[in-house]
């Protein structure tokens, strides 16, 4: 069974997911890479702020906050 792909913004906080695709230009991709957000990476969603606030995720044992728009361009599949 293949897991469903969904944007990072729809992942419930506390869940772990794997990055399948990062949509966006070269600069954007590069920016995310810099924080360890690369295709195939496992991440844990720590929090999603209300009122279209940012999403905080943990990758490589480090946390990073990214704006809602950016998070929407990161497609993931939920692991658990």
């Amino acid at each position: 069974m293949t897991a469903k792909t969904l944007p990072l913004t729809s992942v419930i906080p506390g869940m772990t997911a794997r990055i399948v695709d990062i949509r966006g230009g070269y600069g954007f991709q590069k920016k995310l890479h810099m924080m360890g957000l690369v295709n195939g990476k496992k991440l844990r969603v720590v929090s999603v702020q209300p009122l279209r606030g940012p999403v905080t995720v943990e990758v490589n044992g480090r946390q990073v906050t990214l704006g809602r728009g950016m998070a929407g361009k990161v497609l993931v599949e939920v692991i658990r």
Partner: protein
Amino acid sequence: MGNPNVGKSVVFSRLTGANVIASNYPGTTVDFSKGKMRLDGEKVEIIDAPGTYSLEPTNKAEEVALKMFEEADVVINVVDATNLERNLYLTLQLLERDKPVIIALNLWDETKHLGIYIDEKKLEELLDVPAVPTVAITGEGIKKLVSRIKEAKSPEHIKPTSDEARWIEIGSIIKKVERIEHRHHTLVDRIADATIKPLTGIPFAIVIIFASFWIVRLIGESLINFIFDPFFNLWYKPVMVELSNLLGSGFLHDIIIGQLINGDIDFMQSMGLLTTGLYVPIGMVLPYIIAFYFTLSILEDSGYLPRLATVVDNVFHKLGMHGHGIVPVFLGLGCNVPGALATRTLETRKQRFISATLLAIAVPCMAQTAMIFGALGTYGMQYIVMVFLTLGVLYVVMGLILNKTVKGESPEIFLEIPPYHRPSLRAVTKKTWMRVRWFLSDAIPFLFFGVFIVNVLYVAGVLQWLGRVLSPVTQALFGLPGSASVALIMGFLRKDLAVGVLLPLDLTPLQMVIAVTMLTVYFPCVATFAVLIKELGIKDMLKATVIMIATAVVVGAVLKVILLGV
């Protein structure tokens, strides 16, 4: 050089003995500092640069970092050993250029209890440059780092390449040198997460902010009641009274002691160099400066600020900035100058313009806060709350307006959240002292200058004349006597001095609220003004100035209608 928040500034302090501010959040250093150290009997210059993730800058602070890189003869690349993978990206970029590099694997102490094991020998071999484990806060490994600086080199085998190739290279290096033991989510991690999750994080943020203010007041008032006031009243005042008698009356007396109020020296109102000029900065502002910076240092070093930035991001985004905009506000509450510099970590001109303008309008520095308390304290707490409430509303309303009207982009937040640390009392005390010293050496000359100017203008009759001429305007627009405008002129030099002009006017509490609020809003002090010109450029600063003055006039007029009902 290195990524943000990896301990570069602490390493710099260790190497040079010079003190620079270090805090547990990315973007502490926004400008370079230079220092000197001895290397094999020779004096060499060391530069502390702002942090950057790559050699392609995304904000002003990173531009400074790139410029420093180009100036340097040797690069000490400080690397966060607990986050090697990401840090190696910049390292590879540095190694691709032909500048000699040496690596400091900093935060080495943290790797152990995170279950990270790094084979530094192997890393050295793979990269072909020296790599020295260091713990900058204790000084461990710094000697070794220094002794190996001369071995720094630019390896032949690392050539400029594509992004992708770099990440592949990093992957293969990591595989060879690093082993990570799986770590379970501990209770501490869970508590840390609770401070960023909205349900718990928002109440937590409110508690922290109120607690901080309460602590600042508690420490500040205790210092005043137990140390500063006794000193000034019991010890300093008799000396001044003696001096006053000695000088008799005349110009010299007016300048040094000032005017006697009901036949006595009044430290707030006399306006002499050695009375008000000394009392305002030392007796009134300094205690709160100490209290504020002590509390701020704890907040900074704990690592809470980036979490707060995350929690408040949605609000700041509506104001045309993003969550990191909270940092200039916090720093600005101490002094607007470092606050203005901190706007450099925002990415676009629009964000920086909004952040700086709002800072100047609605964020009172400690001197302003002391003025607000000094002018209204005797009338009651509710009036002080009124002023702060007005400023808070102004910050939001002006932010909403500027976001709509200022052209340009406001990109979203993208911020690394560092792990929590327990602030060390030594580091906090040292940092507080550094900032207090800065306040003393910077503020006092301005105060003396301000007092001097006021006295000269007073003796020449200029101030009285100005008060008369402006009276119809201030009366009609703001319900204030004309001489209140003198306070506005004073406030240009130092806001805290203006209180000495306002107190003798016998204003009603509500009039005082209007005067004090306008005084805070209409213009930053000269020092901040100078920094803002540099940060924003003359053209934008002119725009900001127009906005500030217009805001002050509108606010004054609106408050008059609301508070005085006329």
